């Protein structure tokens, strides 16, 4: 399971901060404005990487969910990773919509239009918001994780639909600049490099946010498991034989140097 030591997470956070700062300087100060769109085009350097980050996050959610559903790789950690990544994906899908709206108003002349790209992106937002709600509907942990994993795989169908919507249908939204059908990027060099840097900076941000979010999820999971243990212990003590849950609790198995991982520490040896 992916887990970084705390100094590594802090270093990643610092690197992300520097990268985002450099991006702001490049995108707002160094790179020239667009011939047609003027300064408004500078929103591309946050709108495009935000959308990329959302795709990446939902891809990680889909892969983690598949790994949870496959019995041979089933571990609670995959479910935790899927949920953490989806949360970040939802935030950046929302950000993509807001930034797109701010870009659309000066350039298209509209905050919002009902074209296929915008609508399928809004659908993506609500699909994964619904997924996050579904994750919180209480149930047995394994049942909850399985139904979340199935929902995540269904929701992921919309990601390629969003991406190819501008090629499949006639939209007001332009086609992708770099990954268009002809792979023929019509973008001047310094703008292209700034966009590439922006994608790298946002990918770093994803790495940092994920590392933190997974740390947090494990910490909270550990607490939940201890509370569950306590509840079971209390019921066993009061006479009702409910020990069936106990075998599954230490499931967080790999423990690859997870410094201070209470999901392992809390559920495992010292209980």
């Amino acid at each position, binding site marked *: 399971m992916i887990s970084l030591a705390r100094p590594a997470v802090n270093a990643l956070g610092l690197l992300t901060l520097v990268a985002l700062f450099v991006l702001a300087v490049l995108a707002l100060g160094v790179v020239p404005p667009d011939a047609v769109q003027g300064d408004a085009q500078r929103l591309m350097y946050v709108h495009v990487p935000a959308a990329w980050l959302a795709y990446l996050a939902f891809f990680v959610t889909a892969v983690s969910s598949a790994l949870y559903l496959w019995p041979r790789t089933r571990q609670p950690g995959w479910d935790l990773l899927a949920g953490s990544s989806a949360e970040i994906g939802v935030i950046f899908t929302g950000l993509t919509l*807001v930034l797109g709206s701010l870009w659309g108003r000066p350039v298209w002349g509209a905050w919002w239009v009902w074209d296929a790209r915008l609508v399928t992106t809004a659908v993506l937002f609500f699909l994964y918001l619904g997924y996050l709600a579904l994750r919180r509907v209480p149930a047995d942990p394994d049942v909850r994780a399985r139904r979340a994993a199935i929902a995540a795989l269904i929701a992921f169908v919309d990601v390629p639909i969003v991406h190819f919507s501008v090629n499949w249908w006639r939209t007001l939204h332009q086609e992708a600049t770099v990954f268009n059908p002809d792979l023929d990027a019509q973008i001047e060099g310094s703008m292209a490099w700034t966009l590439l840097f922006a994608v790298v900076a946002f990918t770093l941000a994803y790495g940092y946010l994920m590392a933190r979010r997974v740390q947090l999820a494990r910490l*909270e999971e550990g607490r939940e498991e201890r509370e569950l243990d306590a509840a079971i212990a209390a019921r066993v003590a009061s006479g009702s034989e409910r020990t069936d849950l106990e075998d599954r609790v230490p499931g967080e198995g790999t423990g690859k140097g997870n410094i201070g991982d209470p999901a392992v520490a809390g559920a495992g040896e010292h209980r």
Partner: protein
Amino acid sequence: MSDAGFVVAGYVITAVVLIAYIGWMAARFRRVRRGLTEEELERWR
């Protein structure tokens, strides 16, 4: 609003969203750590 206004709004919103999310996580970290035993806190550190 001028073009620059939309751009600044976009970059400010991006920064605020990132800071708010990191801050929200930090608050939850604090809340969970308060519930840990001394031994577990030691392991966490």
